[in-house]
């Protein structure tokens, strides 16, 4: 019965609905962007309406929120955290630094495009993005999940070699457990 196509569809609908409305975020507060998270979560903008809620550890989280520039040193940790998260998982790039390097575009140790290294589902533009745009970003993510298009994790799995190559290019000494799920 479970393998039946129609019932699978129903299950998928329920699942996607649940995933959509329950986004537990792991805020990786790298740069100045982390300052925008508290207003987003507290009474003014109250992201909990959307089912957004903080998670304490990567094991429990659904969304990896990267709020700002990533030095190579931080990138290593972010990749580690991402790989520790459980499927399904999504990445939100937050602020222009994650998109094109932002004001750190010519820095000697800051990456300029996050999606070369991790599969980003949604980018939120701005330097800093206002809480409104953050909420808009979450809404976009929900839209994608509902449509079943937020498949960053799948992409990562499929193109793991490509990602690894890029990652290893900026992180020369690579000592991490293998990613195999």
């Amino acid at each position, binding site marked *: 019965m479970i393998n039946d196509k129609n019932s699978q569809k129903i299950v998928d609908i329920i699942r996607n609905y649940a995933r959509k409305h*329950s986004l537990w975020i792991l805020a990786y507060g790298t740069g100045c962007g982390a300052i925008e998270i508290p207003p987003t979560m507290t009474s003014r903008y109250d992201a*909990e309406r959307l*089912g957004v809620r903080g998670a304490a*550890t990567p094991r429990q989280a659904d969304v990896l929120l990267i709020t700002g520039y990533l030095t190579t040193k931080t990138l290593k940790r972010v990749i580690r955290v991402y790989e520790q998260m*459980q*499927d399904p998982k999504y990445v939100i790039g937050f602020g222009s630094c994650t998109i094109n390097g932002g004001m750190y575009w010519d820095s000697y140790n800051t990456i300029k495009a996050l999606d070369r290294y991790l599969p980003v589902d949604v980018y939120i533009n701005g330097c800093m993005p206002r809480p409104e745009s953050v909420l808009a970003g979450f809404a976009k993510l929900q839209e994608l999940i509902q449509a079943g298009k937020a498949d960053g994790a799948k992409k990562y799995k499929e193109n793991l070699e490509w990602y690894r190559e890029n990652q290893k290019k900026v992180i020369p000494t690579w000592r991490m457990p293998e990613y195999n799920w």
Partner: protein
Amino acid sequence: MHEIIQITWGAIVSFILAFTVGITYMGLNRKITARIQNRIGPPWYQNFIDVIKLGSKQTSIHHGVMQHMGPAFIMVTSVMSLLIIPILNQNRFFPNLNFHGDLVFLLYIMVFGPLGMALGAGQTGNPNSAIGVTRGLSQMAGFEIPWVMALVALMIQYKTTSIVDLMNIQVETGKWLMFSSPFAFLAALLAMLGMFRYAPFDIVGAPQELASGPMSENGGKYLFVMMSAGSVFAFAKLTLYVDLFMGGANNLIILVVKTFSLYLFPMLYGIVSPRYRTEQSVRYFWGWPSLFGLLAILHAMFF
């Protein structure tokens, strides 16, 4: 055989009931907290969504057998206490396993799960988990004292160690035990604060400093089972309090009303409280609540 099927059936139905009600209470907690903080807050059914999501999440790692069994341990506690605590007066709702002399059993089965889960948390090797466990156990050594004092006071006052007997006494006399044994009720109520682990006693899994403590390595299905067990256990505890102190309930609606009004206490207390350090909370429970417990025993012995 018939009995076994009946009890199994009863267990399933009461589990579903407890699950539903417990999760709803948790969702209402979030909603009410949000409203008090001048937020809109999530819908009341938010926790259902969370649980379903956790259940549908893929879980591809475990740290060993003990961690794998941890959630099952804690589920044993929840379901066993549900099976032993009579849901309605005269056990009208479903037959369950309750037996005479179950209060002492309940005291011990209530620590079975947390301890099992603590073992699971220990095996993950995450230092945060171990720290959380030590805090949880210390806090438990704190709040168990007033709780046991309250129960002992009831036991000696009514010469029984059975929940059903206590319920029947309340039905017969028409007087709730929270009025006839006020000190025991106070002690038990304050102990309940620790049992629910809301603020100010939430140091065990404080997300800010311990990364949710014992649960920090559990995600997906493990967290799913734990959350469900927590909700069921919360309902079971509330039902126990209602059974013991508030005269039980004759139907489910009354039960829900009574349990929810009882639930408001730790909830509201938690919303307006900051957080205690472990030794502070331990000392708190050995202070006023234990004094109330002692008074309850004296009251029971001499009146």
